[in-house]
């Protein structure tokens, strides 16, 4: 979706401000949010792209005003309710009012180490890769109303395939509960002028990781 989360190339957000000796968490609730998200992921409740899509659906003014972990918490509430893990009435009450739904497995202290290992996104290829390193490709000019990982600044642009990452679960499908729909994944590199016009920094190249349905031969 063409949301405010898709920030690449936007102006006006100001300077990057680094905080010296930044702690892992600024508030204790931030750690709780992160740990709950990891636990719910381990429990097989929803996919990371469903979490991303729930954030993207926040109203722009909410998205921009919220901190990173506030966005996570809001998106988690959305997924908990939409997927039937708890009712909005229960979140409002601060207590369970009904029994829970079955989960695949539970993240308990003895399996924390395994639980924090990233899962693999590789999937069985459904056919041969359409592109190889060195191929010129054009990204499609798509504007789905749902989740996509093709950023706006890189739509309808010509680039070169640099790396082939194998076949992966396709976020555009996963996020809307349409299954993995495995797709080949490529690093595609663009000249700055192709993205930002004649005034662009001539020393710059930018790459994205693009799923095969985003690309056509150029």
């Amino acid at each position: 979706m063409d949301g405010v989360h898709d920030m690449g190339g936007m102006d006006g957000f100001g300077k990057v401000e680094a905080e010296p000796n930044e702690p892992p968490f600024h508030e204790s609730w931030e750690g709780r949010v992160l740990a709950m998200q990891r636990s719910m992921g381990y429990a097989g409740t929803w996919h990371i792209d469903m979490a991303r899509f729930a954030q993207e659906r926040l109203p722009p003014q909410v998205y921009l005003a919220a901190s990173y972990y506030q966005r996570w918490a809001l998106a988690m509430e959305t997924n908990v309710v939409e997927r039937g893990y708890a009712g909005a009435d229960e979140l409002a009450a601060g207590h369970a009012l009904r029994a829970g739904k079955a989960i695949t497995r539970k993240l308990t202290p003895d399996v924390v180490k395994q639980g924090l290992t990233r899962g693999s996104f590789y999937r069985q290829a459904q056919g041969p890769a359409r592109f190889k390193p060195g191929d010129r490709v054009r990204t499609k000019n798509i504007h789905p109303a749902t989740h996509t990982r093709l950023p706006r600044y890189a739509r309808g642009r010509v680039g070169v395939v640099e790396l082939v990452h194998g076949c992966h679960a396709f976020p555009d499908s996963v996020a809307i509960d349409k299954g993995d729909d495995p797709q080949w994944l490529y690093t595609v590199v663009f000249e700055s002028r192709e993205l930002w016009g004649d005034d662009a920094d001539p020393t710059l190249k930018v790459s994205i990781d693009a799923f095969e349905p985003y690309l056509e031969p150029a």
Partner: protein
Amino acid sequence: MADHDHDHHHDHGSELSETQLRVRALETVLTEKGYVDPAALDAIIETYETKVGPHNGSRVVAKAWSDPAFKQALLEDASKAVRTLGHESKVGDHLVAIENTPSTHNMIVCTLCSCYPWEVLGLPPVWYKSAPYRSRAVKDPRGVLADFGVKLPKETQIRVWDSTAETRFIVLPMRPAGTEGWSEERLAQLVTRDSMIGTGFAKKPDEVA
């Protein structure tokens, strides 16, 4: 006394932000429903506070600087190479290492959310997740570097990697001059988090004690 108690509870309650209250409610509900275990939440938080951090990545870089065979393996398949080091946070399948050279400087970003190589760098800093970084890194990386006090020669090529899928990138910074014969442990002291994101360089020998 009753009034005092009442006031005390009232004051205490008003100190909790709306976010704290909502997160507490969420945790209570998810716990009562049997989905999450508060003791596991504690252990996860402890892992990210004490065990997983940029020191994991520093070790990878220091080894790559010292061991040409490891460096080659890292650049060919970073997931596989890093797994041989036995980190606390085991790496998944999708780590890619990219090498800075005198002619090309690499920087990583995630414009769409805040994808970051947690497995080797720990949790991302706030600036990495912020709108200024996410918006400008792909268009004006030299301006972003200036915000960090970093200046590249004007002829240096810049490559920005936008993490738009589940691939995660780590930059292998250039080894500083004057470190010949240093041990991996000593070299690791020079490797900063920002140097592995591409918003900084490794420290020079005279910057560490």
